[in-house]
């Protein structure tokens, strides 16, 4: 198990995981969101390459609705 912080909350994940798979497992469509990994915005093309590891933080930002 690894400890990570997702949207400000401490969470335990079974293992390291790339961001694309993490979003998929949580039913989040990557085109709806932008993700910030350890304070860096991750480009869409890199979400399969960036791995969530012990102590990492992930913020999922969703600037969608308004009207």
């Amino acid at each position, binding site marked *: 198990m690894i400890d990570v912080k997702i949207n400000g909350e401490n969470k335990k994940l079974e293992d390291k995981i790339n961001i694309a798979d993490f979003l998929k497992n949580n039913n989040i469509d990557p085109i709806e969101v932008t993700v910030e990994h350890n304070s860096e*915005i991750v480009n869409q093309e890199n979400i399969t390459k960036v791995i969530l590891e012990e102590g990492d933080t992930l*913020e999922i*930002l*969703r*600037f*969608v*609705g*308004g*009207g």
Partner: protein
Amino acid sequence: MQIDLERYKRQLSIKAIGKHGQQKLFNAKVLVCGAGGLGGPALIYLAAAGIGSIGLCDFDVIEQSNLNRQILYNHADIRKQKAYIAKEKLEKFNPDVKVETYSEKLTEENASDIFKNYDVVIDAVDNFQSRYLINAAAYRSSITIVCGAVCEFEGILTVAVPKENTSCFQCIYPIKPSSELTSKTFGILGAIAGTIGSMQALEAIKFILGLHCLKNKVLIFNGIENTYRIRSISKRKDCPICK
């Protein structure tokens, strides 16, 4: 114009406002793009605070399905033009305020012409295409942007100040989503839109008064957990808008 001391009595007594701040608010020009769930409460609180010139840009008509959140309108307004009804209500609400309406669709061609008349633009639209357009046009016109969005029980808010070279919306969303996403795709609760719309008015008011605002930061409101998170947003070196 002479400030109505009675009307603004309860905010004139706020140390950071006073008569000087109230005059700044009266002299300010704020444009609200989208007079819906976010724009409605933003417009009402801007007018209530005594912002002297308010522009509102919306080409839509009022639909029944708007009424769970768009508190400027009621059942009798269905099928009427939002810009027209909003102007009428705001001017009745505070006759000190001059309201200008733009009921055409915001485009690359007309945005700069409209934006050049304002100090601040509130991005209260419901789609990505318009958010990118507003961000770029506001940077070209060097006016401050207060960007807000809501989705189900979550809201999000940020401020970009071109004159201070801050990060912008496109630093957060560098690549335009390939498919079109709008609020029609997601659920919106009126009270969440009301919270974020009110905060957009607050950020605009604070910026005009020269107080702290959410520059280079994003605020995320979780309406289920009753929590706010604030994250710093770095300016992207390769951002085509705010570089």
